């Protein structure tokens, strides 16, 4: 979407050309753009400069710093302290040592860490591949009913994870449809899906895939719509089959979108909490099989870990700082590899 085009589509026609420096010579005092650099002349001959524009930024900057930037950075500092407000003591890296090596805490942490990667693998391999497949189908010129399919694919993205997660928790309960499914001869489907440690995490991941596949689909659709028709026609004439056209032409061209999706998937997986909270519970049952970094952070940092039940903000901050470092380590190289030069 180009803002300029949108503006024109709205019927905003550029005002009649006026000289960049108005003949009247009303150049404001304190204007910083007095040097006749071409760019400045064209657009901002009367630009009052930073001392003026800063005031437009100030309100946004204040809220952003106070409620996002500062608390985020200060969480890193917090990970070096133990105790709650008032009784807080500097303990160095003790929270991290506990998190990574303490027999109880580290078992939970590495368990949740492993589960988060499984959860991530599902989103990369099932959600994003499915999204790509849907997008290729939805951008085929000869496909009918594209709008309807698109609308349907996107519906789950608008439902709260808490609602869809709880819905699936009920639907997957053998009590709900067990008798009917057995009567239909589908007794293989009647299982305690969320109660069995071997299936619980897979089912939770698949429900999340069901919910979010619309996002990569729509982004890939937007990317694929930008691929030039001429190129695809040329490939067609050369006798490329669908797979060759996709792999050698479309895919390399939308690589920046692929990278963006990979980053979004990565970040949101280390953020995931609602789906576990709704489908199995904040403790990640059965036996921590569905415990993710998000739910672990909730228990240690906010709610209190079983059986003590007292939150440890320091350990929680250590978890969130570790996530922070992991996100940066994952996001920056992906950005560099896929985004090219801007």
């Amino acid at each position: 979407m180009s803002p300029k085009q949108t503006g024109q589509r709205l019927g905003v026609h550029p005002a009649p050309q006026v000289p960049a420096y108005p003949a009247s010579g009303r150049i404001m005092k304190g204007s910083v753009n007095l040097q006749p650099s071409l760019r400045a002349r064209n657009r901002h001959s009367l630009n009052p400069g930073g001392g003026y524009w800063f005031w437009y930024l100030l309100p946004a900057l204040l809220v952003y710093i106070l409620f996002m930037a500062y608390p985020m950075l200060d969480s890193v500092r917090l990970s070096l302290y133990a105790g709650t407000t008032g009784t807080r003591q500097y303990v160095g890296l003790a929270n991290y040592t506990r998190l990574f090596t303490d027999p109880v805490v580290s078992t939970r942490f590495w368990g949740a860490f492993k589960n988060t990667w499984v959860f991530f693998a599902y989103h990369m391999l099932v959600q994003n591949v499915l999204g790509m497949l849907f997008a290729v189908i939805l951008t085929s010129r000869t496909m009918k009913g594209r709008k309807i399919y698109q609308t349907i694919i996107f519906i789950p993205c608008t439902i709260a994870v808490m609602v869809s997660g709880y819905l699936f928790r009920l639907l997957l309960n053998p009590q709900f449809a067990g008798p009917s499914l057995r009567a239909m001869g589908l007794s293989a489907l009647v299982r305690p899906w969320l109660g069995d440690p071997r299936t619980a995490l897979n089912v939770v991941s698949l429900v999340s895939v069901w919910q979010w596949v619309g996002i990569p689909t729509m982004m890939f659709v937007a990317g694929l719509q930008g691929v030039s028709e001429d190129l695809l026609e040329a490939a067609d004439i050369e006798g490329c089959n669908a797979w060759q056209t996709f792999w050698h032409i479309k895919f390399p061209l939308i690589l920046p979108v692929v990278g963006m999706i990979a980053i979004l998937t990565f970040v949101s997986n280390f953020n995931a909490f609602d789906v576990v909270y709704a489908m199995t519970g904040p403790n990640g049952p059965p036996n921590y099989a569905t415990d993710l970094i998000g739910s672990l952070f909730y228990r240690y940092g906010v709610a209190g870990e079983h059986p003590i039940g007292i939150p440890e903000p320091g350990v929680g901050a250590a978890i969130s700082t570790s996530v922070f470092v992991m996100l940066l380590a994952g996001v920056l190289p992906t950005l560099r590899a896929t985004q090219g030069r801007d």
Partner: protein
Amino acid sequence: MDRTKVKPRKTRSLRLARMNLPGHLLMLVWAVVVLLPVYLLVVNALKTRMGMYADPFALPLPLVWDNFRAIINQGNFFMYFANSLMVVVVSLGAILMLGSLAGYGLAHWRGKLARGLYFFFMIGMMLPIKIATIRLMELMKLLGLFNQLWSIILVYIAMGLPIAVFVLTEFIRGLPGDLYEAAHIDGARRSKIYYSIVLPLIKPALATVGIYNLVPIWNDLWFPLIFITQEDKKTVLLAVTRLQGQYTTDWPKVFALLTLSALPVILLYLSMSRQFVAGLTAGAVKG
């Protein structure tokens, strides 16, 4: 392949290929996968308990509205709904106002400091604000905002600002520069230009930013769960979290509450799906 000499057999297979049968098949299967749970949600909210257990897949005949009535009357649904609505409206209004002011400033202010501030906002798009939860919780207690809707509203504003600043700055930069010149020659002040020229022109971008933030704010569970414990301040999703205890055995009522919580956004989406898709994918596709 020479296209001028296509044999009849080839034409038929081409026509067959144009029908995209495998594509339709896959799309239909996925449509069922998406719609079946939604169907089960709605029909079972309209049944009695016995009716649901008898056949959960059947259509609700006759329609039973008692579950919805119970959720609305005894369940205080409208109180939760009003809280959620208040949070969304105030947050979005503030995000759009602060974001467009900052975007207006950043689009015109050229210099190292401006670039630095722009980048500072951009970082916020990549990092999840949840990381800051523990510190935010203490901050809210300190400010006396714990258990007040303002606590989550302020967090949502901060969370929504990076994307707002990004989209709106780019959009305002793309507006024809002559526009300002003309207005300025007419003697309009810059604040007046913002209000009477820029704001009306950036409406499409404001809609994009609004929708981008609307869904995550309405659907957020994390911050209300942590910041709000007082009953009369709870949002719709917090009402859903109480289900475990409240109606454990009365599933149709649970379905009714889930339906009521999901319905507003689904209806909004179905009535303006194009803007939704544009809005929710705004972050990834550069302008």
